[in-house]
């Protein structure tokens, strides 16, 4: 599937590196096609646990490290509108729900995106992912003219409940940018990248597939995750 042109794409995720794994190829392609892309990253991943032994950072210095990595990832994708939203890692679900909807509504009203990418509610595993997805869906639900909403889903029961992704983008041409985006988040991805290189050398098709395609689900308004809010 080729990636359609958009007026503006808004990407909303809670953690530096969320964009790298799932959508950096799609973001890069949009930018190369001339579509403006905004990435709103809600936290700086302050609670990350991969600090090494011996540790390369402390609980207090980690956000500084991750902020630099997030900027480097944006640079790797060619993204110029990076918004750091100032929330704290692992607390988003405890924020006031209306405040979260307002944060999303303000972004949407300012940017007028024709497409929004976030996680898919109930299929995003991490509490911060779920809270982010809920806020975005609620904000879009209230709009008269809703932009396209693409969700990233990876819970263990995703295939069983949602079936196969109905949006699969070929990102082969920007494979290098995707790799560089993942490499930018080295404090979080070093272990995984090492394993990935090993699998690629062995010709593992699942890993290769992961670097050539990105998968999304159109949000199913007819199966909304909640009746109202």
């Amino acid at each position: 599937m080729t990636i359609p042109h958009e007026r503006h794409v808004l990407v909303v995720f809670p953690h530096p590196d969320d964009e790298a794994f799932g959508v950096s190829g799609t973001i890069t392609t949009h930018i190369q096609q001339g579509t403006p892309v905004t990435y709103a990253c809600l936290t700086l991943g302050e609670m990350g646990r991969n600090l090494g032994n011996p540790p390369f950072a402390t609980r207090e210095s980690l956000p500084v490290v991750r902020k630099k990595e997030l900027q480097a990832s944006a640079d790797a994708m060619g993204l110029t509108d990076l918004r750091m939203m100032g929330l704290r890692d692992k607390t988003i679900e405890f924020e006031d729900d209306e405040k979260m909807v307002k944060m999303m509504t303000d972004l949407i009203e300012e940017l007028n995106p024709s497409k929004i990418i976030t996680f898919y509610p109930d299929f995003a595993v991490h509490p911060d992912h779920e809270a982010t997805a809920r806020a975005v869906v609620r904000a879009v639900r209230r709009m008269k003219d809703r932009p396209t909403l693409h969700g990233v889903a990876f819970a263990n029961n995703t295939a069983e409940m949602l079936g196969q992704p109905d949006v699969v983008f070929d990102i082969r041409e920007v494979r290098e940018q995707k790799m560089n985006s993942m490499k930018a988040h080295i404090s979080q991805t070093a272990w995984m990248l090492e394993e990935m290189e090993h699998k690629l050398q062995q010709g593992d098709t699942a890993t290769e597939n992961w670097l050539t395609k990105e998968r999304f689900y159109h949000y199913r308004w007819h199966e909304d995750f909640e009746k109202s809010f």
Partner: protein
Amino acid sequence: MELVEVKKLQVQLDAFAGKDVYLHLETTNGSYASHFNESFFNAGAFIRNVVINYELGKVVGDSPHRVGLKLPHGWVYAQGITHYELDEEGRLLLAGHAGDGKLAVALEISETPFSY
């Protein structure tokens, strides 16, 4: 951060005793623990910028160490501490790093609030 040397860390703990200090205490298994192993019971706790005043702080045991703070009406303690650092802002940062490099527990004490 450096590996805990009990005598050195004890001196640092003593220095904060009897003062109003901001506390950070956390322990976690990571949010993906139940994703990778569905039978895993995931529990954790997190406190940040709660003010306490401890009368006695003590580091005990071989590594990983236990660190306890005795309060006028209660206790704070952390188990699994391996590393520590008095950072450039004068904050005492204690951490327990598992062999795989993951932070398992953190206990931090500061005379000024930690960032949000």
